[in-house]
């Protein structure tokens, strides 16, 4: 079926592949580690990753090699690697498959990253709900430790890299890297003010790198096949490699599709995901998880790479593509996501904590046909006072569903308000923006 070569999902597509250490080794697993540890300088590993153009797959898309390069070179104390497996962005379910079906691919990437940055300890911060995933990873760590790929004196090279699974406990914000560190330290998951950045003051105030599962899973392949090979895939020079796109919503075949970056949503939805569920026209889609602004059918031919999606007014984010068919209320869809953000706001910053509550209440009023035209101004004002005014990017994310649906489907908001007017010719109480 695939026209393109699979990289991350390749092993698991083979019949009978269980994800065990033996299966992984049969496909050439841990060869990259054997060839790198002690044979290649850690700085060479970083240089290769930089040259590959690999960018973070968690959402922000920051160049991985550059992130590693921020660690202080002369620092003698402990350093840490955290694998961000807190996959919580609505619309995203790729890390789950990578961890549950091919855990050693992730572990090899983790040990390679530890080697590159000089970390002797790595924590996999996995979202608490993924109990099965955490058990699979723990089992795989046990196998890898017994085989000498993880632990002290890896493969006799004298290099130490220990890996532990740490389960979160149900807080979306812990996918934000500094909130993740706070949570891993046993505290409430409140994002830290930056700077200082984790590269210098991370876990336990020590130099730390936080990388997403999919990012780390790419490392063995980059080292085995070379950065030039990797950099030739996708939309070079800025969006290289593949993405595991998670397709959800009104399509015939929702699921994970690994494709080179730069594929269009039209191809993804109609060639790969089987097209629309009820053959109704596509009305809207979100290209990169709940934090990414909604796009319209006009954007179906926008390439799914970091730059093109940003130029279209959204973001590639986590790769979660959610598709909505004609007939879906965009006000309802925006409210559903707003309720998510309201629930998940950590409460640290007032604009986000209070604003999310006001946004939900205003949206609910409009949906309940009790809205007024001035509610639209209220929504816009609130959004403008949240975005950019919070410690972390959550504030920018939470306003995107409302701002983007107001931009593209303002008439749906207006129609609901007009219905409200018609239903309330005699108002029981004076208008006003009560919250």
């Amino acid at each position, binding site marked *: 079926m695939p026209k393109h070569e699979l990289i991350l999902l390749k092993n*698991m*597509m*083979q019949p009978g592949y269980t*994800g065990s250490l033996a299966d992984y080794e049969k496909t050439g697993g841990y060869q990259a580690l054997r060839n790198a540890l002690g044979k290649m300088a850690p700085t060479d590993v970083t240089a290769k990753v930089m040259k590959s153009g690999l960018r973070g797959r968690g959402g922000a898309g920051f160049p991985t090699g550059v992130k590693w390069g921020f660690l202080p070179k002369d620092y003698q104390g*402990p350093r840490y690697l955290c694998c961000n497996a807190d*996959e*919580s*962005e*609505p*619309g*995203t*379910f790729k*890390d*789950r*498959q990578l961890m*549950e*079906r091919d855990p050693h691919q992730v572990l090899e990437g983790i040990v390679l990253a530890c080697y590159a940055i000089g970390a002797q*300890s790595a924590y996999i911060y996995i*979202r*608490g*709900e*993924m*109990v*099965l995933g955490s058990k*699979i990873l723990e089992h795989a760590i046990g196998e890898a430790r017994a085989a000498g790929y993880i632990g002290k004196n890896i493969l006799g090279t004298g290099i130490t890299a220990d890996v*532990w699974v*740490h*389960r*979160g*406990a*149900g*807080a*979306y914000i812990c996918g934000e890297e500094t909130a993740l560190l706070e*949570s*891993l*330290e*046993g*505290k*409430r*998951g409140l994002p830290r003010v930056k700077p200082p950045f984790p590269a210098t003051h991370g876990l*336990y105030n020590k130099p730390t790198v936080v990388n997403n599962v999919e990012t780390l899973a790419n490392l063995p392949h980059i080292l085995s096949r070379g950065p030039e090979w990797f950099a030739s895939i996708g939309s070079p020079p800025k969006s290289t490699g593949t993405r595991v796109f*998670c*397709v*959800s*919503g009104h399509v015939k*075949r*929702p*699921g*994970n599709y690994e494709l080179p970056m730069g594929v269009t949503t039209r191809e993804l939805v109609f060639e790969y995901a089987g097209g629309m569920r009820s053959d109704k026209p596509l009305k809207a889609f979100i290209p990169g998880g*709940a934090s990414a602004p909604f796009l319209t059918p006009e954007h179906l031919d926008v390439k799914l790479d970091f730059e093109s999606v940003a130029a279209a007014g959204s973001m590639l984010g986590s790769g*979660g593509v*959610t598709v*909505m068919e004609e007939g*879906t209320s965009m006000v309802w*869809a925006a409210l*559903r*996501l707003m*309720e*998510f953000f309201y629930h*998940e706001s950590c409460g640290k910053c007032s604009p986000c904590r209070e604003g999310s509550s006001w946004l939900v209440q205003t949206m609910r009023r409009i949906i309940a046909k009790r809205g007024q035209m001035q509610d639209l101004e209220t929504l816009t004002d609130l959004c403008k006072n949240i975005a950019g005014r919070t410690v972390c990017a959550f504030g920018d994310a939470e306003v995107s569903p409302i701002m983007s649906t107001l931009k593209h489907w303002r008439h749906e908001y207006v129609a609901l308000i007009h219905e409200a007017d018609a239903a309330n010719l005699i108002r029981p109480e004076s208008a006003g923006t009560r919250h």
Partner: protein
Amino acid sequence: MTLSEKYKDEIAEILSRYPVKRSALIPLLYLAQREPGYVTEAAMTEIAGLLKLTPPQVYETATFYTMLNLKKVGKHHIQVCKSLMCALVGSDTVIGWLRTKLGIAPGETTADGLFTLSAVECLAACGTAPMMQINDDYYERLTEEKVDKILADLRTAGTSPLKSGPYMWPESAR
């Protein structure tokens, strides 16, 4: 029995993973929750002692995370995802079925203490929506027949073979 008596080895193993004791807090809270299904005040005080924290420090962390229950929940905690991706393909209908079948609203527990129903936010299984989590297990691509079967299984056997295995897409490649 205190946690230290009951889970001595497990606690030692958890503590050995971290250079700073407080990092063991969430893992220990999970341990405290394992049997009763929620974290008691006595357990939090004991954990504070183990980690050299004050009880309020334990409490402030425990109250932040939705998976740590501070009140008793039913034997089977049913959590239906209601976020947009699941809602697009019918999660509200699933919640409706469960309301009728169990006779309780989200946030409530059945009189026999067997089931608690919750409507929750995204559980990262959007490709197999609608879905729900019951205790540690995911149940995906829910239909009414499937929900009936799961509830019957849980009532009779305490577990259901319909729970998800390792996630795979496409399923034919399994």
